[in-house]
């Protein structure tokens, strides 16, 4: 550490370390896409972006609403009249209308089985900022959170980079469909304890990213009793709640704790409109905590990630339009379901199976039969081949800290139907070609030779930058330096 700092212009360790994750090899996929992006007519041989969990299937509905309600964007005389109050509104509580509308929307997404108190809605800069805020509130540098793996790669950045926390993965296996078991939780907890790591809680995404599955009631109850017994926190990242497109339905943690005897001060929810509404550009992240101290503290921190009042106002109007919201949610899940089935059925035809899922903007594809060897190395080789030959930027399981090689996350909601067909066609061709070849060894050697030549051409940052392989090091220099 010291060495890097002497060399540089006196920057902090945080500014010079690698915890942002953008130097990891997984960025190769993004770079490949950036250099040669697919376009149906202008660049039909380009790389198709299937690594970005973006929901673009219902933009037409949003567009229609915005055009029909111009005053919501402060674009009409009536809208501008509100400006005087909106433009100077910088209270970190957020507009009352906005908090109410978001609370109501969360209730609706949760099936109207729980009520959310608008006074507990705290703004953060996207789910990224919201997750970090929760960590800043709950833990000190060197503390750790348990995270069921496979997990969202950028957790490694959001939860650790500026907070100085550590992640302890909880291994989930394909043998029971990646369920989170009590035994796995206990094991990870004990392991952390024995290495003298102070575990402050469990954080997980429900519906799961990358699996696209929802947690069942039983698992959630067991999670709640686990954290309750240990006296640690449970943070549920529910940003994909409204992407559920078939049964079983989504169950919010708020619903589970309603009829459970537990310490509610331990339960926190992170929400956002980036996935459910497809608005990552609006940067709306929400912390909803049942713990008054956390609400209070997170609210003071929300000065670091406030949503522009103009956007708050726009969203407040949009989300209060119940007819629109109802219609949008119905249509969105219909379209997601259709897209999901086109993809998974298409893959089934060529013998590729996927984990059964019913949520998210992606599915979890099983490519184990195509691995040359059943190791992380084998997975990376296959992945590089998929990027350079098949020209699809999918995300390898190892970037999600999946302990079993051969799984890939494929995003399907950020493209149009035409592109879907092209992508499917490419996968089919690739798989069939692999099957026809008699000597699979030669095939993989060919992948070897064809090295991926890439360069950093873009400064663009992504929502889902993967992280370097498992970084659980209790003796990281940062920690040592602090204690």
């Amino acid at each position, binding site marked *: 550490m010291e060495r890097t700092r002497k060399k540089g212009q006196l920057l902090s360790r945080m500014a010079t370390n690698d915890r942002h994750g953008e130097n990891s090899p997984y960025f190769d996929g993004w770079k490949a896409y950036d250099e040669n992006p697919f376009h149906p007519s202008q660049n039909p041989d380009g790389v198709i972006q299937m690594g970005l969990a973006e929901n673009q299937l219902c933009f037409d509905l949003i567009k229609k609403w915005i055009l029909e309600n111009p005053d919501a964007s402060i674009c009409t005389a009536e809208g501008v009249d509100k400006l005087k109050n909106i433009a100077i509104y910088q209270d970190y509580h957020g507009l009352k209308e906005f908090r109410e509308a978001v609370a109501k929307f969360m209730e609706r997404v949760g099936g109207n089985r729980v009520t959310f108190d608008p006074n507990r809605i705290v703004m953060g800069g996207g789910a990224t900022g919201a997750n970090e805020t929760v960590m800043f509130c709950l833990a000190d540098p060197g503390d750790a959170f348990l995270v069921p793996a496979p997990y969202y790669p950028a957790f490694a950045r959001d939860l650790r980079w500026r907070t100085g926390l550590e992640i302890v993965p909880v291994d989930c296996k394909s043998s029971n469909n990646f369920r989170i078991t009590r035994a796995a939780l206990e094991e990870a907890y004990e392991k952390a304890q024995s290495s003298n790591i102070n575990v402050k809680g469990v954080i997980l995404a429900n519906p799961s990213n990358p699996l696209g599955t929802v947690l069942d009631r039983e698992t959630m109850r067991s999670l709640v009793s686990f954290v309750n017994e240990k006296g640690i926190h449970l943070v549920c990242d529910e940003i994909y709640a409204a992407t559920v497109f078939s049964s079983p339905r989504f169950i919010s943690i708020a619903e589970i704790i309603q009829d459970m005897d537990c310490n509610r001060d331990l339960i926190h929810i992170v929400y956002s409109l980036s996935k459910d509404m497809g*608005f990552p550009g609006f940067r709306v992240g929400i912390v909803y905590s049942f713990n008054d101290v956390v609400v209070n503290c997170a609210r003071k921190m929300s000065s670091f990630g406030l949503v522009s*009042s103009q956007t708050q106002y726009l969203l407040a109007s949009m989300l209060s339009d119940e007819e629109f919201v109802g219609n949008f949610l119905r249509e969105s899940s219909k379209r997601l379901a259709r897209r999901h089935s086109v993809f998974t059925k298409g893959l089934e035809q060529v013998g590729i199976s996927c984990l059964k899922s019913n949520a998210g903007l992606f599915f979890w594809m099983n490519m184990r039969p195509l691995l040359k060897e059943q190791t992380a190395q084998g997975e990376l080789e296959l992945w590089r081949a998929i990027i350079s030959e098949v020209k699809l930027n999918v995300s390898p399981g190892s970037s999600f800290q999946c302990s079993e090689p051969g799984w890939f996350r494929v995003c399907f909601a950020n493209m149009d139907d035409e592109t879907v067909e092209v992508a499917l066609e490419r996968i089919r061709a690739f798989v069939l070609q692999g099957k026809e070849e008699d000597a699979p060894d030669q095939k993989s050697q060919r992948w070897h030779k064809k090295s991926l030549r890439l360069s950093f051409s873009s400064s663009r940052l992504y929502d889902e930058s993967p992280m370097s392989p498992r970084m659980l090091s209790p003796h990281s220099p940062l920690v040592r330096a602090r204690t």
Partner: protein
Amino acid sequence: MTQTRFSRTRTPEPEKEQARGGGGAAMRVIVPLQGVVQGRGGLILGSIIPCALFYFLQFYLKRHRNDQDDQNESNSPGQNQGTRSPSSGQLTELPGLTRNLSRALLSPRSPSGPVSVSGRVSGIVKAADSPYYAGLRRVKEDQYDELGNPNGVIQLGLAENKLSLDLVKNWLAENAREAILGNGKELSISGIATYQPFDGLMEFKVAVAGFMAQVMEKAVSFNPSQIVLTAGATPAIEILSFCLADAGNAFLVPTPYYPGFDRDVKWRTGVEIIHVPCRSADNFNLSITALDIAFNQAKKRGLKVRGIIISNPSNPVGNLLSRETLYNLLDFAREKNIHIVSNEILAGCTHGNEEFVSMAEIVDLEDVDRKRVHLVYGLSKDLSLPGFRVGVIYSFNEEVLAAAKKLTRFSSISAPTQRLLISMLSDTKFVQTFITINRERLHRMYVQFVEGLKKLGIECIKSSGGFYCWADMSGLISSYSEKGELELWDKLLNIAKVNVTPGSCCHCIEPGWFRFCFATLTEKDIPVVMERIQKVSETCKLNR
């Protein structure tokens, strides 16, 4: 740096009242003494004598303190916003360095017991008890309105500018539809709803760079590729703090300073602020000598100083840093090998004839050592749009820019707002009119407000920037101490019903100074405000 400082920050809780009285008494001697010394003997003597006294006192106390205080002490010389509030006692707590506290609270086996949160939480929650925030809350509950609530509290505590909002409004009425909805026909949803670069759209950076140059009257041009945009100046300052310093390192900040710095610089980073006191005898101008003393003291205490944070125009005083001071600052930073963060968020809100010089201009001319200079800017003040959350980091250091860009994902600006502002800022004719008219209006309000106070016998430091004036009310406080100051603040809030910012919230070393923000008022409100202040000032004079 003098006895006052001691009375404000160093006193362990049980002896607090006692020591405060003592500090007040000592201060009555020392501050005038210093004025005399400075008048005759100049800066050096004036600063060194009290500093030496203070140092010995500190040394003496260190030997007579118990462990816990010692710890707080060594953590933070400037961590005293907690002690400001009379009720909250010794609240000095540090993010990052309070892990022992958090562990002490840890009770993993008893679910019904207190839940363990992070060590920084209690400090953050308690910071809200300071008069600055308490006053703002009070206004929110009972805000003055000429017709609706004539007995409500008048807001003079928030640096907000409503004087020229009508201009922004007119522009929006004419142009917003096209700016957001794109000619009313082609609305590009994918241009606003999808992921955009977290550090801001390039088009917006170009527009912001143009705006900044226009605000600074073309004295300097800004390169859009050196801009990183954030959701307000608050995260801009925090990001720089994260990039330039490790937990436990420190920044030098001249006092009095903007109360929000404690939040922006320290809360989540674990970085310290070392106060560099500026005095009324110097018209609260920054002296390099004071910087040097603060730097050396920090060094002696084992604190690593990573930079200086200045505000130009200053907040709360409203004065400008001269070209010469800026050069001296740069020399100082070079000599000590530290950074300079220049907060120029009020550059467009200067009024009067004094020349505003941006740090960027100095660096442009100097052409050396640019890498240690970083600017903070925003549209909250200069365009009166705090709700739109646009902050700017402008740095000459590529590594800082690279790290800051990655960090903006935690606090980036909503895309529809960026689109709207691109059109507004690109309208240079509008921008020019806005800046000119806004400056005129600010100046008019300033002159009237200062005159009003003068009639009540309250003098202000001459200022040329910002939405406020910095008033000397030390003649009205019952005891020359923080306690006296807060008593007066309380009277102003509860009897006169005006919310002002007491100097202690800005860590001013001399008690009795107050910041009055006048840009949320209209001209006809001024007599009402003066009448209310007069009520309190008269009773105070009688009681003395």
